[in-house]
């Protein structure tokens, strides 16, 4: 079953990047436009176009693309003039770490806030959290980012307003470097995570309330189980499954990059890389970024499904049947 899943994922990815290959080349726009300006000679743009192989027929270009793809080569980026994967490897590690941290914060905070909420459903805390989660979800991230910079950077001078590190981290030891990175990531993490916390809080709170109202919980209480035991061993495992599916998709999307947060805070992430590649018509880089994003979405979904099955064996039975 897993093997079938992997094969279908590979086919989907291949179709995706092939479709993108043709779509990019048939859409208006020209990668050699960057080389036309008053300061550059007109002959340069023509030479550059030739070197990008853009003058040859589309099918020939696709053939070359497929042959290179067999060896895992996505070509040379038009902008950076180095292999596409080398460019992506300059940006992907940060995105993976940043997105993972944000994901952990979203899940953890959402989880604990929902647990606190369901302890007294309809109580003051529950109502406050529900209202706040709505505001947090509705607040645009660009607005939140700018407000955080204004308060914590500009007025209070606590956190840096952009970048991932100070200029002279080379002279820092490991702990100093860790501290420096942490300081720089506080505001971006809050900006990226707040709406996600609201989403997970809402999801889990609804599911927990649902499960708490089920007859088997009443049965467990009647049999003398403590609330702690009921919550930990029975309610949470039953309530968490739908959340894992959502989490799998959300994590995959996080890995594609968080463009707005990256722009506001000047972070070197996949979001900015992909959008800049699209705007400059850097075809090989767009295809490479899309491939990576697609692969990460597929992998995270697969992991989410495996975790769900581990938590609930009935799902595995259902799948096998």
């Amino acid at each position, binding site marked *: 079953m897993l093997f079938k899943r992997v094969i279908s994922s590979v086919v989907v990815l291949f179709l995706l990047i092939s479709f993108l290959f043709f779509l990019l080349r048939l859409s*208006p726009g*020209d990668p050699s436009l960057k080389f036309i300006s008053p300061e550059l000679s007109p*002959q340069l743009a023509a030479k550059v176009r030739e070197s990008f192989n853009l003058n040859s027929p589309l099918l020939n270009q696709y053939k070359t693309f497929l042959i290179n793809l067999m060896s895992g080569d996505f070509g040379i980026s038009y902008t950076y003039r180095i292999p596409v994967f080398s460019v992506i490897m300059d940006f992907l590690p940060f995105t993976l770490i940043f997105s993972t941290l944000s994901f952990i914060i979203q899940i953890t905070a959402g989880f604990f806030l929902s647990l606190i909420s369901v302890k007294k459903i309809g109580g003051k805390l529950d109502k406050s959290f529900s209202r706040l989660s709505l505001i947090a979800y509705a607040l645009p991230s660009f607005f939140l980012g700018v407000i955080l910079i204004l308060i914590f950077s500009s007025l209070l001078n606590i956190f840096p307003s952009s970048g991932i590190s100070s*200029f002279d981290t080379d002279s820092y030891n490991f702990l100093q470097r860790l*501290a*420096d990175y942490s300081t720089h990531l506080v505001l971006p993490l809050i900006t990226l995570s707040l709406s996600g916390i609201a989403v997970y809080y809402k999801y889990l709170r609804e599911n927990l309330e649902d499960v708490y109202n089920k007859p088997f919980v009443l049965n467990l209480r009647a049999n003398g189980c403590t609330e702690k035991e009921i919550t930990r061993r029975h309610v949470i495992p039953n309530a968490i499954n739908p959340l894992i599916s959502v989490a799998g998709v959300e994590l995959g999307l996080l890995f594609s990059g968080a463009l707005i947060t990256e722009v*506001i805070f000047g972070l070197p992430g996949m979001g900015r890389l992909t959008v800049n590649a699209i705007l400059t018509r850097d075809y090989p880089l767009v295809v490479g970024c899309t491939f990576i994003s697609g692969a990460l979405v597929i992998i995270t979904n697969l992991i989410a499904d495996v975790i769900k099955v581990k938590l609930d064996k009935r799902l595995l039975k259902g799948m096998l049947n």
Partner: protein
Amino acid sequence: MKLKQCGLIILFSLIVLIPSCNRKNNGHPNAIIIGISSDIDSYNPLFSYTVDEGNVSELLYLGLIDFNWDENSGEEIPRPMLAKDWQWNKDSTSITLDLRNDVYWSDGVQFTAADVVFSYDLYSDPAIQSSRYGFFKSFIADSAFRIDLNKTFIVENPFKIIINFKKGTLPNYLDFAIPLVPEHVFKNIDRKNLITVEKQMKPVTDGPFYLSKWDKNQAIILKANEKSFLHKPNGISELIFKIVPDYTSRLTQLKNGEIDLMEDIKAEDLNQLTDLSNIKLTKISGREYDYTAWSNIDPDAYQKNKKIIPNKLFGDKNVRQALTYAINRQEILHDFLKDHGELAAGPVAPIFKNNLDTLLKPLPYDPDKARKILAGEGWKDVNHTGVLEKNGQRFSFTLEIPSGNPRRVFAASVIKNDLKQIGIEVKIESLEPQVFFQKVFSHQFNSWMAGWSVAIPLDLRSFWYSDLQNTPMNFSCYQNKNADRLINEVDHEKDKLKKHQLFKDLQDTIYNDNPVTFLYWINNNIAYSSRIQDINITALGAVYHCWNWSVKNN
């Protein structure tokens, strides 16, 4: 358990908060931090295609000569750099350059004439696709624009070189200002792969700064090269280009003191900076202008079979002039740019004082005159629809603008309303910049709005010469044989005074033909920290000659 959790939270907070208490440039008291909106792709001058890339590469690599800007004449004045002296021969077909013998590359190898020859070979080699490829029109070159080294360069000794030029051409001092690269570093590299391979190499430079660190999409850190003859003992020790993509973040960091210099500040933000005691303001004017283009030829006929026939709406110069009279450019300048700029009369900015025809004034806003001119050309509201007509053709067109530029959106609305007043129907279409410029370059539009940055030295051939195949930036497809003749004469005129007059005659011709409506010259508003001393920003650029700056810390 709760105690453990509290302890973890406190420890985490300390790790996060303590290092943040010492920010800004306290760790770099003698550094200047410049905020830029995007990273560069290369610091190598061979592959520096953009302004930011040029700014960085020219601080790392030197050219034979350099320039000072003369405000009085509006011209660049050459001054020695790697060439300490030079002599032209009688007919200016050859120049002898005496090179400095005290310049060393950062790996200890001495700079010599061999680096000069090698650099020009690289720049002109089609395989390299350098930023100067195709530029050396005065040099003896083959049909692929590659310089013939044997005929061009004579190396008398390691510090004396003669350069011969093509007869009948007028060599340009700009050809000697190109940053030179070290021969011993690049000579054994396959040229087809140079652009890729050089990115993995440690830079070997000879400029007033060397590349200390390049954190991609974060910062480019240059440190002062104390061995350079340009080094000032009490000058800045570090120059940091900090990449901050968001304009608002950049402005906030400028006010905070996290960055020391920022360009392209919006007009509406200048007032808040004026009140700050730690910020000083200046501007570079006359390097950028906006225009509304009227395609002088029929784009459909040109697309179909490259036929050049006058545009049905804009082919007549009187009609184009009427459109200029009808547009209230002062309103846009005042309301959007807050008067940080000036109206444009032609393609030569007021800063080019020697070449500017001061008799030419921007046409005033005069809708009545516009109506009279159009009526004289046969455009009348025959059917009383509010839209002018001529021979069954309605005066209706689409004005194309690139998306994401609020200034152009504002200006387009003003233009639409102004032209409506005189009976012209305008639809505005906003296109993604890539799509927009592709269509502009291929002459697909009737009318559009865009802007140009102006090169130094003044170059009018690239924009106004009639040959559309070899002048790809003549977007409005301006056709005038007299203008072509004047452009050719300018290129070959050695006498400075005669050259100035030719520029003025050319401006006069363009002014009368009105191929586009020149809207306004836009100021590049620059703000910098009062820490920066000895700063002198000229038309050549904000960071030009920044090795002369120093820092005064409070």
